[in-house]
């Protein structure tokens, strides 16, 4: 029997775990959060359930069915609060180093898994482009606002502006409305022209992705009911306030996303939620050695196999396609990882669903992809890296003084990207600023199949306390998780320690 580990319990990971178990594998499903569902199906914890959770969630029934199957399946071990902090490659395969328990708690348990097959379904976090004032309290990433709404039933403000680009703005606005906030407006950077080209030039794809269209239609209905204005070709170009957002400046954008002078207007608001797309969580894929595409997603073949033997990928790390694509890809990946035939049964149907969803993903990029003109709303004093408070002016100055356009050098001389978020927020922005507008290929950070750019490399996937590192066993021991199916866990062991020793670099 094959041991399959699935990392990430959002739509892709849940579907992969079920498919792998159906195909006869022993499955361990890991997620860093304390429950299943990922960001897409984030919900109140089990100890305080909501009666009408489904209202906040698309495809809530699908989630319920998936999680029920996985919880009951004898060959599946579900391991929540499991943080994969690093991944090792050795000649025999892959080793996952995991800490299980609350990240802030004292007693996280170390666990090592060496599966026959690994499915990465680590998802994406939303990307926010910097603008003047975005470091003020009251400015949220749209993902954070949605997480608060879905996971805590908390609205981030009373009068909220939603801005950025992409269909994700709609469910975010919808979640805010359901938690009682007034959504002052939804400002979409894409202009009608590109939206029309993205959405209308292949209408049969929209028909094919009927589920997706239906989902979006539902959100649009929410906005209409609440008389929320959805305004294409506009952006929040500044946030204002003394210690807290009290207003934003909205401006019209041209085709390149450059703000059009004279169109600025001030909008009173106590919160603003911004998302300009998504950044895939690539840490584990990079550590595993997976090839990336030029636009920096994990390259996969028809069975969702990556370039590394024994490693499959599904969901947003292979391209931003939404939950339908993730479910389909997960099913294909899980089947293939278990050694099953992805060309038959449910996987075959999933393959068809996947190609429809991929068409949808391409249209999202065409309609909502970031355009280089956005740097037009930056000022010299605009903070680019919020952790280190490095400004756009300082980045430009350092580049000019040192003559270096290389991300690593500029990070170390300007301090941008060195803070606690480890450039997850600003890394890609910094790289695009360094590569300059128009350098689309390089701005994307690499070449097809080439090595991962440094801004995405993070061997420490999550922070680990030195005490936890020091407590890792130095000798080879077999470890298993405590669970009802502990005997079904993949072989676990820890490598023998290297010879101690060190010198000073």
């Amino acid at each position, binding site marked *: 029997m094959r041991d399959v580990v699935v990392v990430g319990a959002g739509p892709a990971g849940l579907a992969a775990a079920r498919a792998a178990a159906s195909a006869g594998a022993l499955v361990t499903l890991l997620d860093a959060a304390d429950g299943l569902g990922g960001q897409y199906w984030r919900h109140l914890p089990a100890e305080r359930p909501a009666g009408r959770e489904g209202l906040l969630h698309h495809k809530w029934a699908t989630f319920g069915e998936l999680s029920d199957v996985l919880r009951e399946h004898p060959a599946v071990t579900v391991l929540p609060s499991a943080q994969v902090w690093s991944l*090792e490659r050795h000649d025999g395969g892959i080793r996952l180093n995991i800490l299980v328990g609350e990240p802030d708690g004292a007693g996280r348990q170390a666990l090592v898994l060496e599966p026959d097959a690994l499915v990465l379904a680590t998802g994406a976090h939303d990307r926010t482009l910097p603008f003047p004032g975005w470091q003020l309290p009251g400015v949220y990433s749209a993902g954070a606002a949605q997480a608060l709404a879905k996971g805590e039933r908390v609205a981030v403000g009373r009068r909220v502006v939603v801005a950025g680009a992409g269909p994700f703005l709609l469910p975010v606005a919808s979640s805010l409305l359901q938690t009682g906030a007034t959504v002052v407006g939804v400002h979409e950077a894409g202009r009608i022209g590109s939206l029309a080209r993205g959405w209308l030039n292949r209408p049969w794809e929209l028909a094919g992705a009927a589920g997706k269209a239906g989902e979006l239609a539902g959100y649009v209905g929410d906005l209409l009911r609440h008389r929320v204005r959805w305004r294409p070709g506009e952006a929040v170009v500044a946030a204002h306030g003394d210690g807290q957002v009290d207003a934003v400046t909205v401006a019209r954008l041209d085709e390149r996303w450059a703000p059009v002078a004279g169109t600025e207007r001030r909008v009173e608001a106590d919160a603003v939620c911004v998302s300009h797309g998504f950044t895939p969580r690539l840490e584990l894929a990079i550590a595993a050695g997976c090839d990336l595409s030029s636009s920096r997603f994990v390259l996969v073949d028809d069975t969702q196999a990556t370039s590394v033997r024994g490693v499959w990928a599904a969901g947003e790390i292979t391209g931003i396609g939404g939950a339908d694509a993730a479910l389909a890809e997960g099913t294909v990946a899980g089947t293939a990882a278990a050694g099953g035939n992805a060309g038959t049964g449910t996987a075959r149907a999933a393959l068809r669903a996947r190609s429809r969803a991929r068409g949808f993903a391409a249209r999202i990029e065409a309609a909502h992809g970031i355009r280089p003109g956005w740097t037009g709303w930056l000022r010299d004093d605009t903070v680019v890296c919020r952790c280190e408070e490095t400004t756009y002016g300082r980045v430009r100055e350092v580049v000019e003084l040192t003559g*270096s356009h290389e991300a690593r050098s500029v990070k170390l001389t300007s301090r941008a990207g060195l803070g606690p978020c480890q450039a997850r927020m600003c890394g890609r922005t910094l790289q695009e600023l360094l590569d300059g507008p128009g350098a689309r290929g390089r701005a994307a950070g690499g070449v097809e199949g080439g090595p991962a750019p440094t801004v995405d490399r993070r*061997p420490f996937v999550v922070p680990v*306390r*030195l005490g936890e590192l020091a407590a890792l066993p130095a000798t080879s021991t077999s470890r298993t998780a405590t669970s009802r199916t502990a005997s079904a866990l993949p072989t676990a062991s*820890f490598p023998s320690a290297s010879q101690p020793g*060190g*010198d000073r670099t």
Partner: protein
Amino acid sequence: MAADVVIVGAGIVGAACARALARAGARVTVLDRGAAAAGTSAHGEGNLLVSDKGPGPELELATVSLRRWAALAEELADELGPRFPSVEHEAKGGLVVVTSTEGLSGLRRFADAQRASGVEAVEMGAEQARELEPDLAPGVVGAVHYPHDAQVQPVAATEALLASARRAGAEVRTGVEVTGPLLGAGGRLAGVVTSRGEVAADAVVVAAGPWSAEVAERLGSSIPVRPRRGMVLVTTPMPQRIRRKVYDGDYFAATQSAGAELQTSAVIESTQGGTVLIGSSREQVGFDERFRAAVPAEMARRAVAVFPFLAQTNVMRSYVGFRPYMPDHLPVIGPDPVRAGLWFATGHEGAGVGLAPATGDLLAAQLLGLDPALDPRPYAVDRPTLLETQS
């Protein structure tokens, strides 16, 4: 004498050579197949140390170089202005601590020998050491304080040296890979062939760190430099509680010979950004960058043994680099005995940042026929200790 010099490698050593040569009147072109300050120089801590060096040529080079750095930091700041990223030169001093009496006697013997060579090394009891570093572990039984150990930010330092070299007329070309030699009369090296065309030169200096062996081979010679991997851990920022560079000297408990070079197994220090750096592992695994959890685990055990409070501190990033390792633990600074026109400035292992200024001066003096401040023979490519290892 005016000369056209090509330097291969835009790391700290290449940058120091470029500045010294350009200021002495040479027309310098620095080539790097990657970016400036992106290899070994960007993956270390920026240590300027005498504490880890026993009596001998490396200590002599370090003594000159550390004095040079103190002046150089000011020269660079004056020349490049206040907006240029600071090289963050900090003469914070170093403290080697030990937790066993055997370790202490070994450390004391080593410090005695260093003092005989002019190093300021102050022996301390445990209480005195705790006055310098109040958070030291209760098990620390003694220490030696080295007031002259210092620190720079290595990437800023490399960029500053390159910027200064450019002001003296040097040209820095990145993304240009050396692919072969340009040969002149009698097989003399007359420049290099690159991925972007030919570059003629009277002399070619290989300062490509751990990649120097590959470059030497492309130019028709050889140098026995090998990569030695090291990892540095970086914690999340916090209020500073570690004031100096603090080294775990327990290596001495396992060392018999007093003459052995000090090999500390943990270097712990705070940075101006508020993070704590923990170095540094040492493995000979070629250019293999793959992560191994056992390495940070061992580093963490050693760091926590010196500063127990660190157990609660989060590591937020690590980086792995490759040091240019020489079999006889000395850098090479001088002409290639086989291929006329070829020069080397490489093999500094983990000490390149500290040794760069003296290396640049020594190389420039030899290449331009000036009086070197140090006897160059111990660093020669054909020195006996290096020939032995090759035979």
